[in-house]
């Protein structure tokens, strides 16, 4: 019998430990469904990265090897065209090579996100670096597009002649390289979107 000054309520041992265990949610493992989803996103990220590597490196290679020499010459005109005749195409080749190299180096980081789906730091690093690579790739693709458009159509207001009518092989190579680089840009945007979706806390 307790006295009137203090009342002790005897909770038995099992209910007390059960209550303690319920109230420790932070240390519990995340639900397996969410972990599987993040792992799926990481695997998709890896596969898309491989595709983007192929697109970027093939764009750089196609532009770098597109050159054409016409079989006649005069005093005033040069009849040989290659990528280093236009500084924009040089920027294109170098920048696409840099983007392709970055994507190859980011493959280990992507593998780390597959192995540890709940670590936030590698995913945040991938998000930032992929955004920088997206900017560089979009920049060189758009600059090369404007020069290829000018080469196909010319411009009467600025008296710029359409060069593609003479150098058809060079023009085809340059246009194909630009298309491939835009494929790489789209894949990089998908990679950024996937990283953003996977960064959400469970």
């Amino acid at each position, binding site marked *: 019998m307790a006295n009137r000054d203090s009342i002790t309520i005897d909770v038995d041992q099992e209910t007390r430990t059960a209550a303690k265990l319920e109230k420790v949610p932070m240390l519990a493992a995340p639900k397996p469904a969410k972990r599987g989803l993040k792992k799926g996103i990481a695997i998709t990220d890896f596969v898309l990265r491989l595709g983007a590597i192929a697109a970027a490196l093939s764009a750089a290679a196609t532009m770098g090897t597109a050159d054409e020499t016409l079989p006649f010459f005069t005093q005033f005109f040069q009849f040989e*065209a290659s990528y280093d005749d236009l500084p924009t195409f040089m920027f294109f080749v170098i920048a696409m090579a840099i983007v392709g190299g970055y994507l190859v180096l980011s493959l280990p980081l992507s593998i780390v996100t597959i192995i540890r789906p709940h670590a936030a730091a590698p995913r945040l690093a991938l998000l*930032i670096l992929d955004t920088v690579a997206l900017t560089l790739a979009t920049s060189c693709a758009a600059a090369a597009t404007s020069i290829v458009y000018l080469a196909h159509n010319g411009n009467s207001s600025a008296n710029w002649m359409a060069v593609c009518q003479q150098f058809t092989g060079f023009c085809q190579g340059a246009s194909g390289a630009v298309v491939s680089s835009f494929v790489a840009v789209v894949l990089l945007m998908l990679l950024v979107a996937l990283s953003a979706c996977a960064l959400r806390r469970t």
Partner: protein
Amino acid sequence: MKQISDVELGDKAKSSSPRSGVKKGLSILDFVLRLIAIVGTLASAVAMGTTNETLPFFTRFTRFRAEYDDLPTFTFFVVANAIVSGYLVLSLVLSFFHIVRSNAQNSRVLLIIFDAAMLGLLTAGASASAAIVYLAHNGNTNTNWFAICRQFNSFCERISGSLIGSFVGVGVFLLLILVSGLALSRR
């Protein structure tokens, strides 16, 4: 049992306030950066769109008037900058919502995706115009493209200056994606 739950709830509330303070600071930074980007892209679109120069002489063969819609790349630049500044004005609403409710996750992901798309559009417009401006300043001997800046001085200055605001917008978008990613990844 009631005592245990009260103590633990109290601990949780105390430990989350410095973290939500950081998120709120990041959201305010996001809002301010968006205002800067609006100014930059809008100024670029206006500066490029109002260029107009007519030289005081003419011959039979050459036109001596330069406007932004003479080059399709510059038209794309003006349109892209206008679209991006319109998007930024609309996204101010979502950014303000993130200041008020810093723990929103799905809307932040949506904002990152839209920001990445607009970054691509803005970068494309800015670098295509940069290539044409470079060509206008230097010309190209291999393709016989003449440097038109030698004749149209003020047109050239205007189009070169309007690129600056656009590239500032590109830098701000990079920072915006970084800030949103940081706010999303913090617990």
